[in-house]
């Protein structure tokens, strides 16, 4: 496995994430897409740490994972609230701020 391969994988994951984010309507699916994008960044961190050496990047990955978990918790809580309010998890319904 080469560095180029890792970067390609990260880029692919990012693009899938973006694609999912803009095409999916379901809040859970969008949340998953965001996770994909976050993880593509994590992979980059890990890959660079592996090939270039140095521990700080590894620390970042662990840190980011922890934050992502917290972020997912908040995100899912929001999804729950939207579901309670609209009976659906389609995010387009949640456009009250526009009014």
């Amino acid at each position, binding site marked *: 496995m080469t560095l180029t391969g890792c970067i390609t994988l990260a880029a692919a994951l990012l693009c899938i994430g*973006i694609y999912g*984010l*803009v*095409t*999916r*309507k379901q809040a859970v699916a*969008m949340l998953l897409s965001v996770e994909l994008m976050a993880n593509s960044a994590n992979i980059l961190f890990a890959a660079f740490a592996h090939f270039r050496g140095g521990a700080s990047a590894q620390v970042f990955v662990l840190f980011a994972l922890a934050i992502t978990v917290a972020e997912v918790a908040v995100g899912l809580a929001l999804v729950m609230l939207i579901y309670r309010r609209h009976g659906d998890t389609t*995010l*387009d319904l*949640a*456009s*009250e*701020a*526009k009014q």
Partner: protein
Amino acid sequence: MTPVTLALVATFAPAVAALLLLIVFPLRHKGAPAAWICLLGSVVSLGAALKLLVDRLGGAGDTRVTAPWIMENGRAMAEMGVLIDGVSLPMLVIVGVVALCVQLFSVAYMHDEAPRAFGRYFTLHALFLFSMNVVVISPNLLQLFAGWELVGLTSYLLIGFYFAKPSAAKAAVKAFWMTKLADMGFLFGLLVLYVFTGGFEWTSQPTTLVATWVTALLFVAVIGKSAQFPLHIWLPDAMEGPTPVSALLHAATMVAAGVFLVVRADPLFALAPGTREVMLWIGSVTALFAACLALVQSDIKKVLAYSTASQLGYMVAALGAGNAFAGFFHLGTHAFFKALLFLAAGSVIHAVHSNSLEDMGGLRKKLPLTTVAFGIGALSLAGFPGFAGFFSKDLVLTSLEGKGNWIPWTMLMGSAFLTAFYMGRVLIKAFGGELSEKSAHAHEGGPAMTGPLVILAIPALASGFLGGWIGTQMHHAHELHFLALTPVVASSMSLIGLTAAWFVFRNGGKAPFAGTLERLDAFSLVDKTWAAGYQVGLLGISGIAGWIDRYLVDGLMNFGAWSTLEGGESARRLQTGRVRDYALMVVAGVVVLALIGVLR
């Protein structure tokens, strides 16, 4: 007391009276006390003026004192003060005498007014005398202008004295607007004088061009104030005011302020032969034109009003011919005999309760004293030999002799004939013939009415003999040659006019061309032109301006606000509220930024 103190007393005594009446309003509201306070002010004023006159006869010279009034860059831009000389002193006395007589007459004439109106009347009279004296004693043109506007104000308020009458209200406003329109000329003249000489002195010596501009602009104001063609139309309307007011303001003093201005500013006018030429013609045209119109008036006051315009035309013509003394002399005699005529007319109106000549007739039997007074005034006005008007009118006409002025001279001779003719008409219609229905119960007013008539009759008869003295005061060599061409023609005109009137009107006949003149009078082209100018010009343009402001200028502002709101509405559509769209925008933004980063 010094001459300055005396002049200030003469000026401010009526001002104090007016102020007292304005502030201590119970005095004004009670009526009678207002008359006494006003009369007291006038007596003090006249007394001071007479004391000055006595001092002058005792050999006192000219006095001029000024004080800074408006400051500019540490120096006085304009001054106020007192000037007592051969012009202001006689004028001060004339104004004082006529004003006092008129006020005394008013006490009886206005007796039936409500107390408040009576009080207001005398307050305004006191204010008028103050303003007029400000004009008379002014040492420079700016102060003259200030007084000039103030007399205009009192004139406006006194014409509108019967403000409940729409016609009086209209006449008052018309008089103010017409004179104010002309006064713009005065203001412009002052500005030109200020720019080129740095002051407002009539003794300054600007170049001929500047002097011509200044005097021409000043003369515009004279046209307005002294009711010259084509701004004369306010004067006949001004007869809506009480008759004594017409006597004082619109015959003897205020309208003569225009002539007084030219007499004062004579050094400037002397530098501007062009202006004088115009004055000569306008004066002559007014004299003849107004005399023609006086011939067909049925209202006794309007006859006198047109005759005033006509006589002012004589004065202006004399000034145009370069003889300030002749103009001023005629101003003086005219003040007396015209005030007398108006007061006598007031006495008649008071007795008959009508202004119309048709309602009068045979009054000589009921009002003998008034008849004599009116007769003296009429003969003086007609220039009957020996009366005051004869001397001054002769002097005016003589000053036009030669110099290629034969057309104006002829016009003035013609109006001299007409003057005698229309005064003869009034005399015969009002006092001659059989008693009319309305005249049957006429009777003379009390001494307050007849007294002023007697007092004024004396100078109307005899003031012509004072010409020599006034002439020396004005440093003018005054000689009358009674056997020269002009006096002979003029006195024959007067006699012919009176005789013709006797033959034409004795049996209730009409003047030749009366129909034409009446149609001319009724059509009143000048009046209509000004009215059209006001309606179409001023109100029309102002209507357009108002519309533009509301719907274009302000509309543009509103449009600005509207487009802000509309723009916001449009921009709002970009905010869909959908998370996916925002995400797409974020991504697009990142891509664009990345591209910029890569391409740079």
